[in-house]
């Protein structure tokens, strides 16, 4: 891969200010949405298993900036950030979490099954690894149709333990599909650290490369500038030359695996590790940088927060006011032709 990309983008010329602000805006919005969900979750109105993306906003933010709505994405149980970054409707997402009829799945899917096909977000799955081949099949269809659209497959570190990951990689390499696999390595699967699941000398990027995937890279959200450049490079190469890519991005989840709370006290990870990651939180770091670099950033930020905050309130209102699905809806839509049950 191009070795030029280390250049400090963050310290570069003014033009990048705009990008930085876009990144900040998107990340901030996702963070605020997720925090609002966390706050309201205990009220018991969002009655479904919910995996928050707080701490993991950067990668999907950048990827969605660098791709278009025509490009497709699929995701996992932890899909909120992917969906929102891609441009998925906030209202319909919050309504879905409330199980309401205006939810993006009419309330049938819940937090783990978001979809917004208008923006190319093709769905997420609650089964680890399950959407990896599906995203690969999407890339196959794009290839057969000669569209030049890219398929993005988000996956967690545990998903690389599922055999279907390798089956998908092999096929993508075999058929030279235009696809980017994005492994967000947050060090844990539920409460289980990597070392209990994978050998210490494990190198997933090398593995994927040896399987015939040309563009691969080890990245971290701790280096926003590199992450942006590398993702731009990889996505650019896929667009231009075709063929699959794979990146592993180091990231960190702030709250418990499933649910709204912090859970450092239960003992599966160190408070100090947590603090370390909070210190280097990409959103905070970007904010500090922008504070220094951008004139009147504080004012801009306050306005932004206000706007997002209003949007969130409206989304929750929308969700709460949205009607429950008719009870008969539950027995409809089993088949695509004649939807109803018997």
């Amino acid at each position, binding site marked *: 891969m191009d070795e030029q990309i280390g250049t400090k983008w963050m310290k570069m010329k003014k033009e990048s200010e705009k990008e930085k602000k876009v990144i900040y805006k998107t990340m901030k919005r996702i963070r605020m949405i997720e925090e609002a969900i966390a706050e309201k979750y205990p009220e018991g109105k969002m009655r479904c298993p919910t995996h928050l993306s707080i701490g993991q906003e950067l990668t999907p933010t950048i990827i969605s900036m660098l791709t278009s709505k025509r490009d497709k994405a699929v995701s996992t149980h932890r899909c909120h950030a992917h969906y929102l970054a891609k441009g998925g409707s906030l209202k319909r997402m919050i309504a879905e979490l409330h199980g309401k009829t205006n939810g993006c799945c009419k309330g049938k899917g819940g937090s783990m099954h978001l979809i917004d096909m208008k923006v190319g977000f093709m769905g997420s799955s609650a089964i680890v690894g399950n959407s990896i081949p599906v995203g690969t099949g999407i890339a196959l*269809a794009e290839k057969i149709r000669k569209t030049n659209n890219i398929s993005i497959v988000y996956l967690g570190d545990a998903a690389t333990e599922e055999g279907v990951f390798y089956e998908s990689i092999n096929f993508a390499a075999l058929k030279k599909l235009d696809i980017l696999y994005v492994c967000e390595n947050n060090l844990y699967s539920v409460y289980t650290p990597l070392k209990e699941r994978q050998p210490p000398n494990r190198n997933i990027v090398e593995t994927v490369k040896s399987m015939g995937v040309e563009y691969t890279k080890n990245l971290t959200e701790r280096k926003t500038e590199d992450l942006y450049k590398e993702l731009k490079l990889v996505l650019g190469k896929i667009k231009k030359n075709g063929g699959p890519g794979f990146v592993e991005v180091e990231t960190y989840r702030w709250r418990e695996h499933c649910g709204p709370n912090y859970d450092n006290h239960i003992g599966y990870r160190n408070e100090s590790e947590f603090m370390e990651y909070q210190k280097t939180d990409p959103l905070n770091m970007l904010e500090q940088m922008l504070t220094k670099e951008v004139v009147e950033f504080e004012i801009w930020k306050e306005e932004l927060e206000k706007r997002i905050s209003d949007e969130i309130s409206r989304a929750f209102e929308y969700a709460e006011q949205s009607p429950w699905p008719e009870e008969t809806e539950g027995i409809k839509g089993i088949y695509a032709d004649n939807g109803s049950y018997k």
Partner: protein
Amino acid sequence: MKFCELVRKAIEDEMDKDETVICYGLGVTDPKGVFGTTKDLHKKFGNKRVFDMPTSENGMTGIGVGAAIMGLKVIMTHQRVDFFLLAMDQVVNSAAKMHYMYGNQLNCPIVIRLIIGRGWGQGPTHSQSLQAWFAHIPGLKVVMPTFAEDAYTLLREAIQDPNPVIYLEHRWLHETNESSVKGNISIGKARICREGKHCTIVSNSYLTLESIKAASYLSERHGIECEIIDLATVKPIDEKTILESVKKTRRICVLDTGFEICGLASEIISMVCINNEIELIDKPIKGSMKDIPEPTSYGLTKNTYLDAADISRKLLKMFKETIVENELMKLKPTRHDIPGDSFKGPF
């Protein structure tokens, strides 16, 4: 034309008509072309639309699902049902549920062709007939043609069906060219392939051919007139056709190529027995595969499968008729592990 040729023709005709149809699976483009069912299709349609695949059943199913939700119509083939056990996550957690779970926004038009092995020592892992598993899962359709012409009609329909369809082909049917009895067939519709007033036989796949033999014998020698319903679609079951027939005959014998516990035969018997409008004269008869893994040895498979003689015997008992063993013996094939000259192993 033979069953295998008509399967091939169905694929060819749909691919001709509809360029969104693609077709893949292990051996699809090889010189044998999956027992002739896909032979040379790649030469006509090119390797973008017709291709062999890596031995990755679960991944390739998910890939088919992904392509299908993008609007391609996918046909995937496996040479045995047994191999497809690797792909249950994708078929159950993805294909079957997607349309419903995503609020009807997308659908998943994938046909999964699975071949049921039998004979020549296929043994425990090359002979399973798991239609009951698929029927158990909401959101799947399950088709299991018996007659060559029905195989054609139902496969074409399955390819155009907007839902995932499991299409089960019996290895012993590939070389047959039984034409179907008159009347249209479509997914969800069973076929009455023999009328009769004394007992309804509900049967499927290769067993229907045995049932027909048995019914002829029973009619000729004992005056017992069986009505034979070939299920053709296993899911959704054509409850109406079955119930109407049983209302008339008030007797039922259900035959199925799958295992007996929680199988299709039990489902149909239960369906008939809980129906308020039906009063049976005799206890229902059930004929399925015993609850044992299939052995390999020629010496052990002799009584593994039901044949026309076994079916006749069951019905004769029901009607309390005298059983003439040497007549029944004539209904048996010469070699129990091959259907005749059409299939002689090894696979």
